[in-house]
Structures are given as structure tokens and as C-alpha cells.
């Protein structure tokens, strides 16, 4: 009997064309593991029907008839990819959870590689990152890359650049993160609250749907919404930068104020225009003070928002079961 289990989670929105092939690939992996010595079993493939716009649900039910390990979660309306993924994770019970898109952009054949990487690097999460252009569209690929870099800078979260919806997550952490996600939170940011043992592995990922048809599951509006949630969920370190500017303004005002006071006492003739400098210094001082106070208020709000979003005080994880997988990979790499 296999000691460890893995679940796949796939949000479904418009995947009718790809689902049979995806299920076949997952089944091939499942069957291969079943006859191999790997102490891991693919116990459930969870598909979350996010009010799909095609006949994906019917296809899934048909596929499930001969595959009892397929689990279908049917959402009451379209909640979006992240929410659907969260719902899927919350229905999982595996020691490991892997999330993958419906459109074969994320080939299940790479799960082995991601798993081995995660275990060897002693990580909790591994994101798959494309080793070349995903959409074969410079604007889209560069736009995504530039935005992620920008957010990484603003938020100070170095993992943002690795974020991808093809992710292997330790089950406990996946469920912990999914359970605190509220409306508007970005799953990957929340995952970073639970662990910093995060890595990325380069894989040949291609958005077949976009390349072949020019259509993507993501409209421009959805991409903006995605980007907005990424920044909202993150701790904006820029707030502290604003407060720092306030401190600098006050410091400058105090230094120059002392200088002017000195001049007024000991060489008043050196001040050609009376009142102008003191006015500027007063404005500078109080602007700086207001900036600091606004920074403090925003910091308070940030703490409250993170509390509401469920940022944990601590989280306990047991990684001892990794040994069985490590032993397996060590044995097979020799």
C-alpha cells in the first residue's frame, strides 16, 4: 500500500476540448505510479467546474463514470480561477496537491520532475516556470514579466516572480492557505505567508489554446483583475517608503530651520527676503509630519487588512513523510 497521496486540482471554465486528453494524461501518470515503487498514489483528480461556458461538466461526468478517482466540484456560479482552485484544494486530502490548468498548458507528465525537485530541494512549494515564451506573444509575455518584477519590488516578496498556476504544494500548507483566503486575496501571496521554502523549476510550458486560436481563458479585464488582486493581497512596502520620505522632509526642515534661526540671530542682513524661507520650512515640516502620520495610519490599515485576510501568526508542518519519497528518488537516480 502506498503511504503518501497526491491530488490534482483543475479549475474548469472552457476546457471541453482539452479535458479528455488531460484526464488521459493524469490517468497514465496514475497507472504508472501504481505499478512503480514510488510511495505515492494519485488518489483523486479534482475538477472544479467554475460555471463553465461549454459542455465541460457533461464531459467530466462522462469521464468520471469509468474513473471513480475523478471528483467533480460544481460551483454555483463563476467565481474565477483562483476561487475555483481554492475550492478544489479545500476538497483535497492528499499529502501533496498539484494545481494545473485545464488547457494542457500544464502537462501532468512534468509532475514527477516537480515532485523530485521539491523533495531534493526540501521545499514546500514548487512553481513551474516556462523555459521559453508561453504565449508566443511578446507583449503578453513581457507584460506579465514586467508586472511581476514591479510587484516583487514594491512588495518585497521575491517569490512573486515565480508565481504560476502550475504548482505543487504540500497538502497541509495548501489547505491552510486556501482556508484563510478571502474574497480578493491572491492564493500565491497567501501561500507565501505559510512557507518560504518555495522554489521554481523551468519547464516547457506553452499556452496551446492561445497559440492556436489567439484566444485565452483570460480576457484583458480578467488580467487586470488578477493584477489588482496580486497587489492588494501583498504587503505594500511602498507605504513605508512614503513614511520615510516624510521623515526626510522633517529632518531637512529642522536642519534648515536651525540654520535660518542661527542666521536670524547672528547675521540677519544675510536674509534678503523676510518670511519666505520660514514659510517654506513650515510647509515642509508639516507636510513631512502629515506624510508620516498618513504612513502610520496606512501601516495600521495594512495590519488590519492582513489580519482580515487571515495572515497566520504561525503554522505547524510535519515534513517527516518526505523521507520515503527522498529514498525513492535517491534509489532511482543511482
Amino acid at each position, binding site marked *: 500500500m502506498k503511504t503518501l*497521496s497526491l491530488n490534482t486540482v483543475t479549475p474548469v471554465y472552457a476546457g471541453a476540448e482539452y479535458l479528455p486528453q488531460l484526464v488521459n494524461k493524469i490517468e497514465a501518470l496514475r497507472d504508472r505510479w501504481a505499478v512503480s515503487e514510488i510511495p505515492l498514489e494519485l488518489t483523486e483528480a479534482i475538477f472544479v467546474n467554475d460555471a463553465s461556458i461549454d459542455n465541460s461538466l457533461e464531459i467530466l461526468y462522462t469521464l468520471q463514470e469509468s474513473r471513480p478517482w475523478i*471528483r467533480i466540484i460544481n460551483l454555483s456560479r463563476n467565481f474565477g480561477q483562483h476561487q475555483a482552485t481554492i475550492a478544489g484544494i479545500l476538497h483535497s486530502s492528499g499529502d501533496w496537491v498539484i494545481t494545473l490548468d485545464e488547457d494542457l498548458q500544464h502537462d501532468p507528465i512534468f509532475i514527477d520532475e516537480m515532485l523530485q525537485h521539491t523533495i531534493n530541494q526540501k521545499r514546500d512549494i514548487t512553481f513551474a516556470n516556462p523555459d521559453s515564451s508561453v504565449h508566443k506573444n511578446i507583449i503578453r509575455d513581457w507584460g506579465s514579466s514586467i508586472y511581476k518584477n514591479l510587484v516583487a519590488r514594491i512588495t518585497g516578496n521575491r517569490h512573486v516572480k515565480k508565481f504560476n498556476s502550475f504548482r505543487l504544494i504540500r497538502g497541509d500548507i495548501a489547505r*491552510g492557505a486556501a*482556508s*484563510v483566503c478571502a474574497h480578493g486575496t491572491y492564493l500565491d501571496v497567501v501561500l507565501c505567508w505559510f512557507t518560504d521554502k518555495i522554489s521554481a523549476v523551468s519547464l516547457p510550458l506553452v499556452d496551446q489554446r492561445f497559440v492556436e486560436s489567439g484566444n485565452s481563458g483570460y480576457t484583458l479585464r480578467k488580467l487586470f483583475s488578477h493584477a489588482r488582486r496580486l497587489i492588494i493581497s501583498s504587503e505594500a512596502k511602498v507605504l513605508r517608503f512614503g513614511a520615510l520620505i516624510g521623515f526626510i522632509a522633517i529632518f531637512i526642515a529642522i536642519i534648515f530651520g536651525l540654520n535660518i534661526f542661527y542666521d536670524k540671530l547672528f547675521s540677519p542682513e544675510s536674509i534678503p527676503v523676510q518670511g519666505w524661507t520660514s514659510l517654506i520650512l513650515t510647509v515642509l515640516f508639516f507636510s513631512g509630519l502629515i506624510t508620516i502620520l498618513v504612513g502610520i495610519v496606512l501601516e495600521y490599515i495594512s495590519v488590519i487588512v492582513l489580519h482580515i485576510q*487571515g495572515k497566520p501568526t504561525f503554522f505547524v*508542518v*510535519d515534513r517527516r513523510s518526505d523521507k520515503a519519497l527522498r529514498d525513492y528518488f535517491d534509489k532511482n537516480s543511482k
Partner: protein
Amino acid sequence: MILFQKEPDSNSNSKVIVLFGAGLIGTAVGDAINTLIKGSWSYYPFAWSDIKARRKDSEYINKSLLRILTSINSGETDIAFIWCAGRAGFGADEDDIQKEFSSFKQVLEIINKTHKLNMTRHTSVHLLSSAGGLFENFKLVDHNSVPQPRRDYGRLKLKQEELLLQMNASIGKFIYRPSSVFGYIGPGQRMGLIPTLLKNGLTNKVSTIYGNLSTLRDYVSNKDIGMFISQCVLGIMRQKRVNYFLLASGKPSSIYEIKHCVERTINKKIYLNFYSTAETENISDITISSLALPANWKSADLNTEIHAVKNRILSGMSYRLVADNLPRNKTI
């Protein structure tokens, strides 16, 4: 012991329902039966600890049943016995186990005696077992899973099931294996993890957890179980002679998820203390496959039910329609 009696009508035969146990599940079953059928009910004492008193109570129950069956058109009567009793929980000691087992055997004697009277059209026995006790440390339990109890409580449940299966073949046997049950039936009563966290959270008390934050369980409301069992008892659903039912939501939840749901529901942080010894440790995952759930089984959404339980606790309302309104001295 609570006895329901329903006169025959144009749609169904007369029914006699004998319910042992008015705890978390028993109350919900009684309440659901009361909602589904209009009939009369009465209360009979059934001693739990005192063996002599229990024998005396059993004799009285048997005589009363004989009187009832004689007084009605008994050949057309369905009689159902429901065992929801038992104070033994996961951490039960030998004494609790013995008391429960001997009480259960006594109830089986009552059933056998009544059945031998041959005065009913159909007899069925409904036993509340435990998925957690039988399948501790199992993931995705389904119909193919073979029970492997790890502690006395699980072994007790398995023995109860085996005893039931040895009964006369003409008796309908219904074995319910619920997962982690929760619900609120009033102060001082067993309630399960979720209401405990809610209640302690609302009163700023510390809750002790014998598992860990990642422990996975499948939480199911006592109301859902009560409704399902009552439908089986009343014959609303056609069943076989021997029936096993896994009663769960099919959605595993970690204690961390429950903690967060509770905190969101009551809008405040809850205090937790993690404590475990070899005797009390309860960290194993127990999850149920959604494919193994009965076709006509319905379980409420967890978040919705947590809110409902919170409101019940806050209003101080227990929904023990049967047990609370019952005149304790009323007997037939």
C-alpha cells in the same frame, strides 16, 4: 428511551419507533421523526449504569411494547429500533465501553423478544456506528474499506455491528457510520469540535485540541444525520435487508480551516491549547470518499451550518423538541 407511535393512515401503516439515546444524534433523529410524522410519543426509563435496574426497565419496555402491539392492528405495523445511545467517545475507557456494550446487548434482547412475538409486519434495527472509530487513519474511506479499529471505542463499534448482523435474517439491519458529528442541543450536552470552538470563542475560554492544526476530518451536522436516519426508519427510502451508510460531507477539513471559519463567524480570535498524551492523542486523518455517500444523502454546507450553530448557541436555543418538551414521568 423514547417511543413514537403513529396511527395508520391512507398512505402508510402504523409505526412504532423505539429510540435509545437522546444525545447529539438521538435528539436530531427524534426531532426529524417528529417533523416528518405526526404521532404520539412517550418516555421510558432505561438505566445505563445499574444492571439490575436496566433489566427491570427492559422487562417493562417489553411488556409495554406487547401492550401497544396488541392494542393496534399489529399485523400491519412496522417497528423500528434505533440505537443512538452511548456515552463512549474516542477516548472512552474500559468502564465506559463495558457499560455501552452491555446496554446494547440488553437492547438486542428487547428487540429479539419483540420480534419473536411475530406481531409486526416488519422489524428493523438502526445502529449508530462510527466511521472515525472503524477507519482511524484512513483516507478516502469507501465501501471497499475494511474496518481496522485502533482503539477500544472502534472495537466496540465493530462488535456492535457484528452482533447486529447475527440477528434474525428477517430483521432489517441499518448500520450508519457517521464521520465527525457536530451540533448544538443545549448546554452541558456533547456537541463536537465546531460548537465547542464557537462556544469557547464566544465566552473567551480556551479550547483544548487533541490533534494538530493539519489533522483532517470530515465534519457533518447532526441535523443531516437525523434527517437521513429518520427517512430510513420511516421507510421513505427503499433499502435492502442489510445496509451500510457512510454519513459524511465528502469534504475533508483541517482543524486550521475550522479554526479560521469559527473566527470569521464570531469575528474574533479563539484561544487554542494543543495537548496530547498517548491516551488522548487524536491526530490521525480520517476522510471519506464522496463517492461512498448514499445517493439520497444531503449534507449542509459547512460554513452555513457553522453560522447556524453559532446562532443557536447565542440564542440559548436548543432544538430538543422531543427531549425537552417531554414529561419525564409520562408512560403508557
